[in-house]
Every structure is written in structure tokens, then in C-alpha cells.
């Protein structure tokens, strides 16, 4: 087993250390940090924009770069949170509280350094966790039949709705709508073109990038413009970056706890960076001396920043082993794999070990690069923050449009993305979170396929989902999860948690 791990990591290093992959990894983390620093543009839109570009790359380089964008953004987000009191990334919301206070006390340097060091530690641990736990999980998943897969997807979707913001019923409705949108296009079993209204452009279905770009890219810009430009940038010169020994001693426990929480929550469906950082901060506020929280407590920076990085990375586990995305960014990664002709699922590890292990090792290398890169470059990031949004959003729009247009070189896709932009705006105004919709959209065709196969095998007997042991357990977990969330006590705390 241990020998296997070393052997596998050896394969991974061989792939990840090729000059080409190192370059894409570097480019990914650099771009990730950049968009992490800039508020108003996140990893989602960036990955969606770059997806068409990755067509031309070898699969492993494409995945290494896209992964780098995601975890790089977690690093970058903290910089903005600490220096400007605005989360550069949603997962850094909580870092603002104590990080900004530290900056006001002239301790921005140590806060940034601890955030970077904590993130690096968390990233390294999470990489190791993926390497250790992904293979056994994939082995279990190889035994899955259609019934098990269907139940697993139900569990994944339920998890995503439970962890979505706001109303549970609306989240379920959004998931259903996503599943339905995913069915648009030619049905693979019967060859019938469904919901295409005779439009040839829709016969392959609605492109995933089109929906993601409309709901996240365009809608985000529209909302930012509607809110108006309220960003105030005032940055003092950062004197000393190095934290003192006391800082390191104070924060080391928080880093370890944050890493642990993030690693666990990242694996959960619907989990990932955002949830992890909130949970870690909440825990930290309950441990030890809490008098300083909200007034520049270094633990309040260390814990959430470690947690969001760990969570960002372990959320790759269900994606890589089961082929099931646990959050929207992972859904995009699956989209990227499918574009490259790789069917996501447990067979990836056995059939393409170089891809699997190369990606994992590259994450560690990427974290190392980030750790080294981030601190000297802070000055440049700070300058970038002074770029006003009115210059930023036309540039983002251009990237989005070129990305969408180059999917098929037809104006139709751009029109469709614009329509989804309206829909995205309406969703947010009606307090319907779009994330469950995207997950449903990705899983829709897969779910239908597995449902059909399972029902065919059982000759139309729907009880098979409960009588097969693994499938039954998965469905049971989904039901329990739903019931627990609906219980009045949990419902109240959930409402409070998302209000904060």
C-alpha cells in the first residue's frame, strides 16, 4: 500500500514536473491569484472563460491549469479581504472580520503571511489526503451499478440543496429545473430531439459553458453595475511581512483545526471552500481565549484561510473518484474533462493514472508556487486593486463573449448566453441560488441514463433502489439529510448561519 502510494506519486511527479505542465500550473495559480484578488470576478467565470482555450491543450495540462485557478483564487481572496475589507472571493468573507482589523493596526504583513503559510500547510495536507483516500474510494465506486449511481447522484443533489443559501424548497426547485435543462437536446436512447423547438443549434443540448457564463458571468456584472461602484481602496504601505514567533505559535493550532475542518467539509456534496471557512471560524470562536475576536485576532485569519484552501482541494475527491461534482467549480472541471473526451468516474484512476496522479502532484507544486509567489507579489496585487470596476467589466465581457462564441463560431450561443444572463439576474432577485441548478444540469443526463438502466435491469421494479444495500444506504442518507434539515431546530440555526 505504502509502496503503491510512493510509486503513484512518482508517476505524478513525472507528469507534473514536465516543463510544459509546470508552466500551465504556474499560469493557472498566477491567474487564480489575480482573479482572487479582484472582487467581482471569481474562479467560476474565469474557468468558464478559459474552457474553450483548453480544447487545444493536452487533457492533463488543461486540468492542471484549471485546478490551479480554483485553489489559487483562495489564496488571492485573502489578500483583498485583509487589505480592503472586501472579500476578493466569497470564501474569504469571514477573513475580512479579523484580517482587516489586523491591517488597521498596522499588522497587514503578518496577517497576509499567516494566511499564506496556513493555506500552504492546508494545501499540502489536503493533497496527501486526496492521494491516500481517493484510490480506495474509486475501488468501491468501480463496483457501483446503475442503481447505486442513481442513488449517489440523488444524495449529491440533496447535499447541494441542503447546503445552498436561503430557502430549501427553492433550492430543490432549482435542482429540478437544472435537471430538466440538462435534458434539452437529442435523447441518446431513442434519438428523439427533446425541447429543441426544431432549432438545429440545440440538438446537442445547451452548452454547459453557455449556462455558466450567463448565470454567473453576465448576471454578476449586471448586479455589480446595479449596486454601483462602492469600492474604496485605501492601502497603507506594508512595513514588515514576517510574523513574529508569537504569531506563529498563536495561529498554529488554528491552522491545524482549520485544515481538518476544511478537508472534511470539502468532500461533502455542496461543500467546498466557502462552507469550510465559515465552519472553521465558528469553531475557533468557541475555543480558548476569545476576547480578541473581531478586534484583529490572528487565529480568525489563520483558521478560515487554511480551511478554505483545504476544502477547495478535497472537493476534488468526489469529482475524481466518482465523477460527481460536489460544487459548481467541480462541475466545470467535469465539463472540461468531457470536452477532452474523458468520461469522469472511477475508471479514470486505473485507465489514466498519469492524468490522475499528475493532477494531484501538480496541486502540491502549485501550492508551493503560491506560497513562494504570493508574498513578494503583494505589492503588485495591491496596485491592481486600484483598477476601477468600470474598466474591469468591459474586459471581462470581452473574454466571456469570445469564450462563448468560440464554442461553435455561431452567434446563436452568444444569444443564448445573454438570455441566461437575464435568467441569472431574475434568479438572484428572487433569492434562488443558481449553484444547485448547475449541478442538476450536469447530472441530468447521467441520472436519466442510470435510472433507465436500473429500471430496465429490475424490469420496472422501483424498489430496487432501496433493496440493493449500497443504493439503499445512499438513498437513506439523502432522506435523513433532508428530514434533518427540515426539522425546526436545525432550520432555525441554518437560517441564522446563512444570515451572518
Amino acid at each position, binding site marked *: 500500500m505504502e509502496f503503491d502510494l510512493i510509486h503513484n506519486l512518482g508517476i505524478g511527479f513525472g507528469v507534473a514536473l514536465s516543463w510544459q505542465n509546470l508552466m500551465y500550473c504556474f499560469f493557472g495559480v498566477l491567474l487564480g491569484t489575480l482573479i482572487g484578488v479582484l472582487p467581482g470576478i471569481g474562479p467560476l467565470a474565469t474557468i468558464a472563460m478559459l474552457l474553450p482555450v483548453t480544447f487545444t491543450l493536452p487533457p492533463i495540462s488543461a486540468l492542471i491549469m484549471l485546478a490551479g485557478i480554483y485553489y489559487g483564487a483562495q489564496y488571492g481572496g485573502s489578500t483583498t479581504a485583509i487589505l480592503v475589507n472586501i472579500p476578493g472571493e466569497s470564501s474569504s468573507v469571514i477573513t475580512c472580520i479579523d484580517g482587516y482589523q489586523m491591517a488597521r493596526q498596522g499588522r497587514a504583513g503578518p496577517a497576509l503571511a499567516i494566511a499564506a503559510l496556513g493555506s500552504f500547510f492546508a494545501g499540502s495536507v489536503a493533497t496527501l489526503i486526496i492521494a491516500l483516500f481517493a484510490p480506495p474510494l474509486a475501488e468501491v465506486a468501480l463496483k457501483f451499478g446503475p442503481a447505486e449511481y442513481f442513488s449517489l447522484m440523488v444524495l449529491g443533489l440533496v447535499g447541494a440543496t441542503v447546503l445552498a443559501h436561503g430557502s430549501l424548497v427553492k433550492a430543490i426547485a432549482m435542482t429540478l429545473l437544472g435537471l430538466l435543462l440538462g435534458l434539452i437536446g437529442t435523447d441518446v436512447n431513442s434519438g428523439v430531439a427533446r425541447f429543441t423547438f426544431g432549432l438545429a443549434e440545440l440538438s446537442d443540448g445547451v452548452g454547459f459553458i453557455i449556462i455558466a457564463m450567463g448565470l454567473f458571468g453576465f448576471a454578476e456584472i449586471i448586479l455589480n453595475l446595479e449596486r454601483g461602484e462602492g469600492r474604496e481602496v485605501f492601502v497603507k504601505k506594508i512595513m514588515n511581512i514576517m510574523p513574529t514567533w508569537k504569531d506563529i505559535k498563536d495561529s498554529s493550532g488554528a491552522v491545524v483545526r482549520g485544515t481538518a475542518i476544511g478537508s472534511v467539509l470539502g468532500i461533502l456534496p455542496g461543500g467546498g471552500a466557502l462552507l469550510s471557512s465559515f465552519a472553521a471560524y465558528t469553531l475557533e470562536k468557541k475555543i480558548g481565549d476569545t476576547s480578541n475576536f473581531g478586534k484583529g485576532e490572528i487565529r480568525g485569519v489563520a483558521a478560515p484561510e487554511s480551511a478554505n484552501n483545504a476544502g477547495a482541494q478535497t472537493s476534488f475527491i468526489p469529482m475524481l473518484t466518482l465523477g460527481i461534482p460536489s460544487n459548481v467549480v467541480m462541475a466545470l472541471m467535469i465539463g472540461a474533462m468531457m470536452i477532452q473526451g474523458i468520461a469522469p468516474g472511477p475508471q479514470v484512476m486505473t485507465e489514466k493514472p498519469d492524468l490522475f496522479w499528475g493532477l494531484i502532484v501538480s496541486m502540491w507544486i502549485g501550492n508551493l508556487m503560491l506560497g513562494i509567489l504570493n508574498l513578494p507579489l503583494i505589492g503588485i496585487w495591491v496596485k491592481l486593486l486600484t483598477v476601477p470596476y468600470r474598466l474591469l467589466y468591459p474586459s471581462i465581457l470581452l473574454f466571456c463573449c*469570445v469564450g462563448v462564441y468560440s464554442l461553435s463560431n455561431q452567434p446563436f450561443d452568444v*444569444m443564448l448566453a445573454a438570455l441566461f444572463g437575464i435568467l441569472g439576474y431574475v434568479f438572484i432577485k428572487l433569492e434562488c441560488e443558481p449553484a444547485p441548478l448547475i449541478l442538476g444540469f450536469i447530472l441530468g443526463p447521467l441520472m436519466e441514463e442510470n435510472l433507465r438502466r436500473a429500471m430496465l435491469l429490475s424490469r420496472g421494479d422501483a424498489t430496487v433502489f432501496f433493496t440493493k444495500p449500497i443504493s439503499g444506504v445512499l438513498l437513506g442518507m439523502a432522506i435523513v439529510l433532508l428530514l434533518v434539515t427540515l426539522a425546526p431546530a436545525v432550520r432555525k440555526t441554518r437560517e441564522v448561519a446563512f444570515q451572518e
Partner: protein
Amino acid sequence: MQIRNGRDFWAGLMFTGFGLGFMLVSLNYPMGSAARMGPAYFPAVLGGLLALLGGGIVLRGYISKFEHPLKVFAFRLPLLIAALVVGGATYFASASLKGAPMVGFALTGLALTLFIGAFGPRSMFLVLVAVMVFGYALKPLGLVLATVLLIVISAFGGHDFRKKEVAILTIALVLFGVLVFVKALGLPFNLWPGG
């Protein structure tokens, strides 16, 4: 009874509409049986569930703890009706418009513009129209002019429009687009009209 939460009310209506729409359209396809599901089976079930949930959310709008006015965002019914009329006419006349593709093109564009204008704030209209113009203009006018149109129209959607800044930004982005998208990444866009 009074609607207490406008957000729930409209969201519920929206979900019911989508659910019923998907369900009704899917009834055109073979249903099959539980053991051999036809293309209509899964979407019909999902659509039905969505419509039911939507109905529930509408009801919740009447008894919700949270209050929110009925007017959630700007909505212009005349524009929506106009968009649907023009769009519907174009769709059903598409066979007879085959001889005049530019007319169909223009009518589709008009319908979409009206549709976008029916919802939301001014900034949304300008941003999405800019996107649409870019999509339509890229092939006939080339990347350079399409980019200029995209940047200038979308810049009007912001709060303050500074001519000099927009000019510099446009030049920079045109240069960037030509160098990166066409020269470096090799995307098959023509730079100028007709070539």
C-alpha cells in the same frame, strides 16, 4: 388574501411555468413504461414535480414570515408582449423567410432586444445588448469593429462614462484581442469586414 413575500410569489410562478412547460412539451414524445422509459418519462415526472413545488412556493408567498414587496425588479409588460409577438412571428414564418435571411436575422435581433429590455435595470439592457451585438457582428464586421461595439455599448451601462478612458480601454482591448485571441491562440476570427 395578501401576498406577503413577492419574491416567493414570483419564484413560485416561474417554477410552475417552467415545470408545466417542460411537462407539456415532453408529452409530444413517447412515454414508454417504467421498465423501458421513453424520452418523455423522466422529464414529464420532473416537470410535474417542479410545477407542484412551484405551486407550494406561490402559496408560501402568502404566509411567509419574511415580507418583501411584490415589485422585485423592473418589469415592462408591453415590451415583453412585443418581444413575444415579433419572436413568435419570426419563428413561425422562418420557412417563408428562407429566401431573405437578413430579414429573419433582423427580426430575431429585434425580438431579443425587446425581450432583454422587458426586464431589469438599464445596465442590464446595455450589457446584454452589447453582448448580442458582438455575437452578431463578429463574423460580418470582424473582431476589431465587434470589440469596439462591445466595449463602447457596455461602457454606457456603467455609472459614469468617461470618453477618454473608454477610448484608451477600447484600443487596449482591441490590441489585446487581436494579439492573444487571433495571433497567439489561433481562434478563427477575421479581423476586418469581409476578410
